[in-house]
């Protein structure tokens, strides 16, 4: 499974790309592979606020439906509208195709996330 460096990861297989006070959130390669072909993505509204670990979006694949959880609390700044018509983008390139962009509420929460090295280890040992 591909794990991209310089991103943060969660045990629920979301990735976070931090850019100042803002961050992009997406699904890891492991997540898209485990889900299989994704056929539908449900996205939140811009300006919605979510706590850390709160479900903000849902993906449906031919195998399962799964929530996507907030790696850190924050406010939705942008949603990736391309996913409405082309949910397969998450399968094709899960790191290029982010799900939402957020304003991070508390940057200290970022410290609780896994680094790419830690996530690789987590995949080896736990999954």
């Amino acid at each position, binding site marked *: 499974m591909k794990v991209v460096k310089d991103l943060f990861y969660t045990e629920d297989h979301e990735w976070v790309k931090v850019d100042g006070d803002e961050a992009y959130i997406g699904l890891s390669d492991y997540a898209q592979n485990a889900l299989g072909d994704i056929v539908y993505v449900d996205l939140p509204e811009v300006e919605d606020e979510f706590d850390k670990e709160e479900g903000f979006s849902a993906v449906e694949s*031919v*195998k*399962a439906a799964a929530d996507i959880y907030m790696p850190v609390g924050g406010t939705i700044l942008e949603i990736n509208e391309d996913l409405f018509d082309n*949910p*397969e983008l998450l399968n094709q390139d899960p790191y290029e195709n982010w799900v939402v962009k957020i304003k991070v509420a508390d940057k200290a929460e970022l410290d609780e996330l896994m680094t790419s090295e830690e996530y690789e280890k987590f995949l080896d040992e736990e999954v």
Partner: protein
Amino acid sequence: MRKYNELIFELSKPGRTAYRLPENDVENIAVEELIPAEYLNDDELNLPEVSEVDIIRHYTNLSDKNFGVDTGFYPLGSCTMKYNPKINEDMASLDGFKNIHPLQSEETVQGALKLMYELDKALCEIAGMDKMTLQPAAGAHGELTGLTLIKAYHENRGDTKRTKIIVPDSAHGTNPASAIMAGFDTIEIKSTKDGLVDIESLKAALSDEVAGLMLTNPNTLGLFEKDIKEIADLVHGCGGLLYYDGANANAILGQARPGDMGFDVVHFNIHKTFSTPHGGGGPGSGPVGVKKILLDFIPTPTVEKDGDRYYLDYDYPKSVGRMKDFYGHFGILVRAYTYILTMGRDGLKKASEMAVLNANYLGHRLKDHYNLQEDTIFKHEFVLAGLKDGLSEVTTLDVAKRLLDYGYHPPTVYFPLIVNEALMPEPTESESKETLDEFADALIKIAEEARENPEILKEAPHNTPVGRVNETQAARNPVLKYEG
């Protein structure tokens, strides 16, 4: 399975008919005089033009492609596709059950009311509960009903901050969905490595905001939650209630009762556990049982008895109201009551014992070829985590598709979500050792094929009227109607 794939439209020949309308003996009125022009559709109506024999052959051939418990082995985990004894049908077609109307006066349907009253009592005894409502139309509807009762219970006490329902990560997808439908938020808790509720994860989730816990026991890995008393004490200790999802009740009939385990509200899937038609043959039925503390809120009407007379009781001022029009799926209730009486106390007990024995026999015959998720004694179903050899190119989906070629309905796949490449067989008590052996032999043969000739699996099924369908394409771009 017959290779017949025609659409009725493809049989159509201009001018061919199966029926001739009688001569018109009333006045002709132009449709334009009756309906404003803007509402009229001037497209040609595309209806198939076929003869009577075309129609009969078409639909008979389609019906011939059905697969059900009456045609073959159907080991669909967590769905309990047990055989539906035909005496159930005989009883449901008795004149006094079949040809009555829900608005008839109580005096004229005493037999039907008695049946509902007695079924309530029988299910209460099996579940260890105090009262049942027979209204819910299926399992998930039972969940919604039960959670609505839990909500009413807390609100009646003025405890409005209990907005959360705890659901284990091995739960049926309907559990969190029903909780949301009932107006709750859900908290997911983890399972241990042994596949049981993680007590520490549960403790961490408990608070004065928790309305209750939903649990299936045995759970979706086929494992009995042996810590259920501790779980119940913990949830009750924080003021929450326990909901029992009866999907797997077939494993414990006559052996253990949800009420004794500490559950406050229970649903049974009549169409699973009590041998009524399931899947396309439904409808389902999901009676909900409650302990006394929830009785005030039960949907109305209930069926009660006064001396020798049975009547519908609407006198529950705090009732959550109706959950279903009329009284539930009555015809299905007749079948379930017939099953309970046919089997009797000892028969039901024996059924669960055989269901568990069959599952263990099958699971342990397969464990050298497939990864048995929990290599232990399980209950009525088990989960295989893919092929033992771990050939990554051959997936559980391929194995399931190949089973179709061997004439079996495949087990549930990719559920529970906590197991990779899950395949979940539930043989039920209905099957003989010979059937189980033939099925195990087929799965073992498929494991050999996966090693020697994986292509045959990748392209399966080969013997069905339609081969491997593109499920992704079907989900992303469904074609839902004929456009010839």
